[in-house]
């Protein structure tokens, strides 16, 4: 029989957001959107009559999730009794004395991997499916790779490895692909926030909803079918919003409107009104132009936009024989060749004030 499965991880329910420019309201909203993503996973599991839901760690943020919220998760799992939910604990929800999973009444279809030192095997004879998994017991490090290598599998069964690990790290459960790739029919990995196909049968599903600007690209869950030595799957996007980083290189010859247009038309409009956009501004800008105004102006075209000001102001290269007349020119001269960020900011502020002073008069 073909086993239908969903593979997800790193939902980070209850997460605390520390994106600098996010308003408190936006953080709250985004936190709710994680719950929405979780609801969507449950809905898909129900609608698609999924047999197994693999969660590769970091389902919740252990330090922040509430008891009540865990109960709500439990009742949502209860609403899909036909789906067996296998939860491995990751770095953010390690299975230890402080983990509240232990104190929640989970429905019968939920299996929480409680082994943190050795690999736990869950066998489902109805599907001849054997799930090998191990949970984390702390936030910091996990060097129990050997336990993974020591797994001996019954090749007559369908073998799945469910693990929260950072393959290439040193102390976050590093795993050698070659050791596992032939052992298991499917390796449901968690721990990386972007979708990544390490091998045909080794996949990081990524977070269903991205959590920071480092996590751009498509996000969703993996939906697939599993047989002995045959796995078929694809990423099913469910993310409501993406994090989008765009680079714009400026030149001192660009006018106010040109820079504004570059920002305005940097991505498709639909994305602009939905996604989180970060514009990395590099290059040089004429001191005549107020970037602060451009940035303020640009905000109205976006759901969310933030700027990384990596450009520098440049004055026109002109020298006069006599005294430099303009105070602004003199001021610019003061900061010439200064690459210190604070000085640059001071320069921008002073320039704004001087420019406003001229405009007022």
């Amino acid at each position, binding site marked *: 029989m073909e086993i239908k499965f969903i593979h997800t991880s790193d939902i980070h329910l209850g997460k605390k957001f520390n994106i600098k420019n996010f308003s408190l309201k936006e953080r709250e909203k985004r936190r709710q959107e994680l719950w929405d993503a979780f609801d969507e996973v449950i809905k898909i599991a129900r609608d698609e009559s999924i047999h197994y839901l693999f969660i590769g760690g970091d389902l919740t943020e252990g330090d922040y999730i509430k008891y009540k919220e865990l109960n709500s998760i439990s009742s949502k799992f209860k609403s899909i009794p036909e789906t067996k939910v296998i939860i491995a604990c990751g770095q953010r929800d390690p299975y230890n004395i402080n983990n509240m999973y232990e104190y929640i009444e989970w429905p019968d279809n939920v299996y929480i991997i409680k082994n943190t030192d050795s690999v736990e095997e869950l066998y489902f004879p109805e599907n001849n499916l054997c799930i090998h998994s191990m949970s984390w017991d702390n936030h910091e490090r996990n060097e129990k790779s050997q336990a993974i290598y020591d797994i001996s599998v019954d090749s007559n069964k369908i073998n799945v490895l469910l693990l929260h690990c950072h393959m290439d790290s040193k102390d976050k459960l590093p795993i050698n692909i070659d050791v596992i790739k032939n052992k298991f029919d499917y390796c449901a990995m968690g721990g990386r926030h972007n979708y990544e196909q390490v091998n045909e049968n080794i996949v990081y599903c990524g977070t269903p909803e991205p959590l920071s600007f480092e996590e751009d690209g498509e996000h969703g869950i993996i939906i697939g079918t599993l047989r002995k030595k045959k796995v078929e799957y694809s990423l099913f996007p469910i993310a409501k919003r993406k994090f989008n980083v765009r680079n714009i290189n400026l030149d001192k010859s660009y006018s106010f409107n040109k820079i504004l247009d570059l920002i305005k038309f940097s991505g498709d409009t639909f994305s602009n009104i939905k996604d989180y956009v970060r514009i990395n501004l590099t290059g040089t800008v004429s001191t005549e132009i107020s970037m602060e105004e451009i940035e303020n102006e640009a905000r109205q075209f976006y759901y969310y936009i933030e700027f990384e000001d990596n450009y520098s102001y440049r004055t026109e290269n002109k020298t006069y024989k006599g005294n430099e*007349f303009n105070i602004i020119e003199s001021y610019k001269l003061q900061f010439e060749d200064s690459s210190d960020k604070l000085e640059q900011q*001071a320069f921008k502020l002073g320039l704004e004030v001087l420019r406003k002073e001229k405009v007022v008069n």
Partner: protein
Amino acid sequence: MYIDRLHLRAFGKFVHKRIFFSRKFNIIYGENEAGKSTIHNFIEAMMYGFDDTDKFNKYKPWNSSMYKGTVEISDGENNNLIVRDFLLNTLQIFKMSNDENTLIENVEVPGEYFFNINKISFKNTVSISQLGNKTEKELAGELKKKIINLSNTKDEKVSIDRIMYRLHSIKEEAGREDDGKTLLGQYALRLSQLKEARENSLNAKRQVMFLAMEKKKLQSKIHEISSHIEVMEKEIFQYELSLEKQRYLKALPVKKEIDELNAKIKSIEAEIINCSKEDYNEAVEIENSLYSMKNDRERLLEEVEECKLQLETLCTDLANKIPDDFEIDKLNLDYDIYIRNNEKINSLRKKIQSGKDSIASINLEEIDKFINDYKKAEDISRKIEINNVLTDNGNYELMKKFGKSNRIRSVLTGFLGTIFVLAGAVSAYGGYYYGNINYYYGGVALLPGIISYVFSWKSRNRALSAKKEIESMECEFADYSLSNNKLSEEKEEIIKRNGFEKFDTMRKTFEKKCEEKLLYEEKIKLINYDENKINEISEENQEIEKNIKKRLNVLNLQLSQENITAIKEAYKRKDKVKEEVSKIKSRIDGINNDITKLNKEISYEEKRLAMILASNGMESVESFKEGVEINEKYRELTERREYCRNILDNIIGDVDFYELKNRTKNIPDEVKEIDKKDIQLNIFKLNEERNKYLNHINDIHREIEDIEESTRGLAEIEEEIDFYEEKISSIKNRIKIAEIAEEKITKISDSIKGDFMPLLRKSISDNFSYLTGEKYTQVVIDEDMNIAVMSKEEGDRKIDLENLSGGTLDQLYLSLRIALSNILSGNQNIPLIFDDSFVQYDSNRLRKSIEMLARESERRQVILFTCQNREAELAKEMNIKFNYIIL
């Protein structure tokens, strides 16, 4: 520097326009739209290019495909040529000498190259547009502000105080962390509150964790109790099962009966038709009533038939045919007459017959022959007698006398007449003659004369006829005597022929015979009379018979005694019959009505019956009956089954029999007694305990819920902490940035004050002194930026700007501009360009301005564009030399 020559090859409205400037004072006069601004803008565009496309388009020639020009500019020694093509955007600068022109390379802006100031400075200093008609006070204030700003910032528009205030206010807005009234202080306070909240939240979390552990413990206790309870319940269960087995055994026969009943029910179930007994009863009732109604109808129909028969009989009765106007009395009368007449006719016929019989013996012919012979003989005898009489002259004599008398009378009356006529004629003549009317009266005698003539004529006629008669008489006499002989012979012959000898005997026989004939005739007369009578009566009877028949025809009857009698009788009972007929008719009507009613009722009832049958799906009452009977049977069976089921229920309760059977399959028939109550008590106690724990768990749940409800989420708090920490850091950063900016700007300002201000002051003073003809020696700016001028005339007295006249302030303003241009350009002596600068000035102030410009033109080139000719006229009046260009 001097602008010597302009060549507008194609610029604005000008094509190949050349303008030559003197190196001193130039006045360019042109009315509005003459092209002053075009030339001014040409100079600016040649030196600095165009700022924007609007201006570029504005001066693009519309009557030439070119857009270019040249400017010759000189520093007194070297002549240079600027060539610019605006369309191609090319610029060439040549240094001109007598031998050759050399191209000066790498010059982008000729203005900056030659004047050493940028466009903004050029516009701010030497290019002077219209000066407002300001009051001295306003002008002084403006000048003061400009000089102060220039002294501090090198920009007359930029105030160092305002800049500092702005930067300072950024810092002020941010405030300090220890000042609760400032933003920073507020944030710091908020942060400390948040940290406290985080601590609370962490505590709450620990508390929740503790409670969750507690709950877990309780749950394991509950688990333990539950397994205890389970064991005990199992024991009870077993016991109860054995009890159930008992119940099962008891229920078994009842179940059997139910099964049998079920089988029976099932066997008839197929036949059960959904029909109602009430409907059936009603149907039967209707059917009965229909039966009786139909009987009634039959009876009524028979009755009607009978009545009709009666009616028919009555209708055929003669009485019924007799019309109302039938004259029975007349008929009777007629008929009586008719009968009587017939009787009369018969009696008359008899009478005639007897009469005829009585005269049959009489030979009338013989008698008639004898009578005729006798009469002939008698006639002959009479003729003989007449002839004898006629031959007697009595008449003859009488006739003769009569003839004679009439002749005499005729003569006499003729004569009398003649006399009268004559008498009359004489009288008339006398009258005529004598002329006396009275004679005419004698004429009347004519009348008796005429009358006498008439009598005379008549008498004469009579006399004539008598004469003729006498003559005939005389002839006759002769004839008679002859015939008498013949007659006598004839007479004798007749007597003899009848066997008589004498006439007298014959007469006697004749008389006898005549009597006999008379009798016969009498009798014939009587018979005829009677026959006539018969005819009369017959006629009458025919009439009567016709009438009677006519009447009888109405009744279609023949004339007969029976019929008449029948009619009579019929007539007598006519009314009775009619009465009887109408009675029967109304009876029939009544019965018919009843039948119609009955029919309606029958049809209604039939329909009702059909409806009842149809609603019950029945075809007939019989099938209905069968259906109802089956239903009845079914009902009885189901009631019985229900009864049995109730019994079964009483025995086994809600439990399914088969389930019970299955459940107790392996249970022995005997009951093993236990102390159920005791066990139940234990279970109860354990349950209570478990409930206690469960309640405790519920309490824990509630407590956890309360805790989580009352504490903010840790994530939220920490996010807010991050947020405010970030805010504080960014504000601090901003303060730092403001400080740096402040420091830098102060540094610049200080350096401007230190380096630039003395220079500016000196340059303004020099120029002011020069322009005022050393009336004022210098301009003084103290540390507090108070500005004054030193008057030479008043013994180096300080005079505030507010106390200077408009003209002097103009001089000061120009001094400021020149000073600036000198400083900025490094004393390049850039030409001064005035564009309608003095339009609003009165002639007195204009005079002073012209004087000032003339003075300045001694040092540098001055170009004055004007739309008035006042300037030129004043200059002429003041004997000032100038190059006058009229556009």
